[in-house]
């Protein structure tokens, strides 16, 4: 056995072991959900028969349908609005010169870092005074505000990477800045925009704290909030299969998108980050 061959086998071993570790908790919860509710499950157990009844019960008892719809409304709106706003802002920061652009951009970059915890207290009390708590607006508006820093940052990186000569040529042809964006730049921007959309959607879909604070009504809960409350209510009842089924349902939409667009996901979280 050559050294290269040994090294290759070692690589496979390492990758397989850690892939199993990465996927085991997810597999275990799916297996749990496939059990019948009456099954007493302990440890690692593969169900004898495939049973989707638990999913059905969880769907009904957890009111997951409503939660999924709310999450789609919130995540969809946040994603579309912040994608449009970020594309405009990224265009200006990436392809134009204007006074104060550096300062504005740095202020915006702070938004990449600070936690929700730092904003939710005043948001809650101000929204309460405005009568906006316990509405989906209370989730949509702040999350647009917290998504545009990443979106703008991401689109700026894209617009900086497009050849300046394209923009110049278009301007020499007398095109307005908007025509330049729409006709010349956007057709190339779709991969970057897709990545941004996918990531913002995922972050918004998975968000929990804001929903926990803002939403009181049962029928306005987002999927993660509904799931957390459902799990809390089921704790101690030994009904682990039911909670597991609800968890699988809530995670599924993002995982499906991930399976198809995993390159976009991963590139989005890294590229631009480490170009050196």
């Amino acid at each position, binding site marked *: 056995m050559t050294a290269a061959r040994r090294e290759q086998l070692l690589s496979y071993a390492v990758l397989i072991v850690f892939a199993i570790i990465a996927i085991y908790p997810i597999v275990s919860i799916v297996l749990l959900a496939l059990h019948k509710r009456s099954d007493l499950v302990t440890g690692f157990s593969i169900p004898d028969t495939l049973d989707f009844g638990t999913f059905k019960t969880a769907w009904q008892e957890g009111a997951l349908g409503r939660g999924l719809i709310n999450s789609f409304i919130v995540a969809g709106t946040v994603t579309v609005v912040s994608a449009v706003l970020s594309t405009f802002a990224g265009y200006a920061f990436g392809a134009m010169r204007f006074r104060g652009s550096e300062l504005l951009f740095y202020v915006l970059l702070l938004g990449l870092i600070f936690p929700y915890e730092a904003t939710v207290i005043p948001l809650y009390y101000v929204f309460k005074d405005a009568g906006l708590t316990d509405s989906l607006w209370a989730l949509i508006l702040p999350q647009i505000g917290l998504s545009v820093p990443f979106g703008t940052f991401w689109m700026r990186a894209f617009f900086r990477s497009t050849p300046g000569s394209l923009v110049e040529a278009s301007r020499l042809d007398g095109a307005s800045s908007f025509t330049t964006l729409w006709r010349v730049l956007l057709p190339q921007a779709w991969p970057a925009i897709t990545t941004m959309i996918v990531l913002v959607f995922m972050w918004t879909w998975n968000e929990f704290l804001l929903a926990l604070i803002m939403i009181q009504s049962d029928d306005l809960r987002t999927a993660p909030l509904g799931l957390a409350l459902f799990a809390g209510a089921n704790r101690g009842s030994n009904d682990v299969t039911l909670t597991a089924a609800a968890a699988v349902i809530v995670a599924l939409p993002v995982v499906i998108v991930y399976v198809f667009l995993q390159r976009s996901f991963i590139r989005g979280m*890294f590229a631009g980050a480490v170009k050196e």
Partner: protein
Amino acid sequence: MGVTAPTGVEDRGSRAPRPRSAVAGDGRAEPRVRVRAPGEPRRVAYLYVAPAMLFYAVFAFAPLIYTGWLSFFDWDGITVGTWAGLDNYRELWDDPGIRTSFVHSFVLIIFYAFVPCFLGLVLASLIAHSRVRGATFFRAVLFLPQTIATVVIAIAWVWIYAPDGPLNEALRAVGLGSLARGWLGDFDFALPALGLVGSWVMFGLCLVLFLAGIQKIPISLYEAARVDGAGRVREFFAVTLPGLRGELAVALTLTTIMALRTFDLIYVSTAGGPGTQTTVPSVLVYQNAFVNGKVGLAAAVAVVLTALIFVVAFGITRIVDRDPSR
């Protein structure tokens, strides 16, 4: 996760040539050092920037400042608040419970940041230079935990750590049943157990990041090291580690911030218990602001937490930037 905001993602591409003066900082055109942005200063740019900046200013930046303002008040959230000066910060400093919550955060940093970065570095350097089929598949699987809602992750791990869950069953199966316990209800093990969940989430991200980074290190450097008779360990410290400086900084920043921000996982799995063994600052922010009616104190905790996050983010960036070899 809303929590998985894209921190640490930095625009290194633009930083490399330090284009401070060239990128329109002062609005004057500099014809010779034109980098990307062509043309004169453009007023129309403000129109493009305005909507995004408006949303950001109103719903993110202003609340941040407002939180700072609230931290100087004694307020129950209902009646009129009274000016308290630095009292909330004094209470924060004096209260052993709050101090401990920050200690818990530092324990989480070890698990969220150091463990995955260390493991990731070692494994990446072990496997980087062998040809592996299905790299895309492995990358996708290792990255999967990043995409799952933290609430779901919490539920999955509550099950794994449950008294009759897979972990304890496995221990019993190999004759270590005496170690079995309800891990998340255990005073000593609850926090490390949650920390390991963080390691699990972050590990794949670090490994994928480092593997990508190693691919960019010129192979000639490794050949040179071999010619000089360097072993694998020397090679790691002389070539791989310096080459991964940027990636390591990004990974450390990202994971440390995630550790400091941890809320969903703890709220759903242990709610800070048993006792206050897993209480972290973000849980205290939530409890004080929305349960206990101590809004000012909650705001002070949030301010300190945010300050810590800024220090980490800028600190790590500074350290990397200062490196003379780049």
